[in-house]
């Protein structure tokens, strides 16, 4: 029961404190030199960005300000939620899903610091 209570409190805190981030060029670019993150970026642009442009809100809500743990992001992508459709294994493979989660986590870490941008 305590776990349930803590979950509710943590969740409410996360929802309340989330601040939507902007993408590049307002924030630093995602350096996709790591192959998994580069592939995750391609998966993101194929399936996610049309409703969540750059992770910001659009047709759907933003998620670059929602610190969901990886396993919950995975659950939501595989099963859908509300009007968001499910993306099954035949659409996004397990390997691509791993890459996508890695990319989203990297995206969320982007800082509002133009000094670190590559020219």
């Amino acid at each position, binding site marked *: 029961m305590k776990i*349930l209570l803590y979950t509710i409190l943590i969740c*409410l805190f996360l929802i309340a404190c989330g601040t939507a981030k*902007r993408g590049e*060029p307002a924030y630093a*670019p995602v350096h996709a030199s790591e192959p998994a993150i580069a592939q995750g970026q391609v998966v993101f642009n194929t399936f996610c*960005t049309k409703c969540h442009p750059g992770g910001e809100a659009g*047709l759907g809500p933003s998620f670059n300000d929602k610190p969901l743990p990886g396993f919950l992001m995975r659950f*939501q992508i595989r099963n859908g939620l509300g009007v968001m459709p499910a993306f099954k294994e035949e659409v996004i493979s397990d390997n691509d899903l791993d890459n996508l989660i890695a990319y989203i986590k990297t995206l969320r870490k982007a800082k509002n610091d133009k000094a670190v941008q590559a020219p």
Partner: protein
Amino acid sequence: MQLLFRSAILLLILVSVAGCYRMRSSNGGAQGTNLITDRPLNAADIELPVGYKAEVIASDLTFPTDVAFDNAGQVYVIEAGYSYGEEFLEPKLIRIAPDGNKTIVATGEKNGPWTGITYHNRNFYVAEGGQKKGGRILKITADGTITVLVENLPSLGDHHTNGPVAGPDGKLYFGIGTATNSGVVGPDNYDMGWLKRNPDFHDIPCQDITVTGQNFTSTHPETNQTITTGAYQPYGTAVKEGQVIQGALPCSGSVLRIDADGGNMELVAWGFRNPFGLAFAPGGNLFVTDNGYDERGSRSVWGVGDYLWQVQQGQWYGWPDFAGGLAFNGDRFETPSKEAPKPLLTQHPNKPPHPAATLGVHSSSNGLDFSTSASFGHPGEAFIAQFGDMAPNVGKVLAPVGFKVVRVNVANGVVTDFAVNKGKKNAPASMLKTGGLERPVAVKFSPDGTALYIIDFGVMHVKDGKTTPLKNTGVIWKVTRNTR
């Protein structure tokens, strides 16, 4: 373990409620736009990558849609002469002097919008949208003489005649948008204004097609009668299962080409919805931007992005039964709380290709051009102007979409913002109360590739189904690179 699972579900439910699509009202950029006639301009309000700067080179324009450059590098802009909101004016070709002074070179008929211009073989070629008399391709000489090369193009509806662009073969390539959102004429077209003017207008396929026989009922906006309409038919005409609809040329949702003298019209590809921006990549391949379906009308389609396509000769790209290469199979694209769209065609000409890139739902990704200069940066990438959403007319969005310029790596479909307004959120400048971008409708590189011109259509507001564009709020921005 069971408790952990329950907690995870609860967490998801709470996050879902916080961002629940159904419970939230639309919060798009069109509805949030402020109708400011004296538009402030401040290039510093535009966020660009480090090393780039923006400046205003012309302002107080009325519905500008594109620019071209003559052999001397002189800048010319076209004013559309028509805007959604049923604003009819005379379209114009205007020369912009280096000091920003304007000289009218040519004035067209009230048959806009002039959607695009290209300079080729010492002449200007313009796509005339054709909202009153049908689409045209015009040739305009340096002294302002206008010659009609092609006329009566079927673009009297929702979308217009677009382009043109000169190909490596010397031919002129242009696009024709569809009459309707998804193949069925309905009250939404009445709201757009054209159905009252042209009650018999409808979509035309490029080849013979056979329809499944679906019909759609709606209430006539004036008579309140129940009207039954089938695909590719005038409002009030039903279809039967297995009925063959004859194809024709010119046709809806197509890319066509003609010789530079207007002759020898040929089909390049079809199955687009609104092929707005056309450009050849440095390697010679043709790319086109395509505005995706809206959540409106008798056959509403939900959750469809805009697309960048690499155009292949003779291919069908999916309209009205596919979106972004995915079929309407009942699993996707249903408007929340409504029925999913079903196929209108019994057989499809081919399986549509995959898009080169997927862009934001309702972003209205329009004019595009390719960087060719290492000096400017990103050579080989496509730059696309995103006009921005028209919510809630086109459907609900939770935040403004578009209102910026993006660049696309066409090799892998990765989209990155290039020019976007500063602020805590993305939105048109009038909504943010800043002096930045309002509605970028096209982008074009200077002939030497070192400057990117952003054509900013100006202020356009949507409220209670009414679209209000503001004259004299259009701007041409120029982006250059200072440091490397």
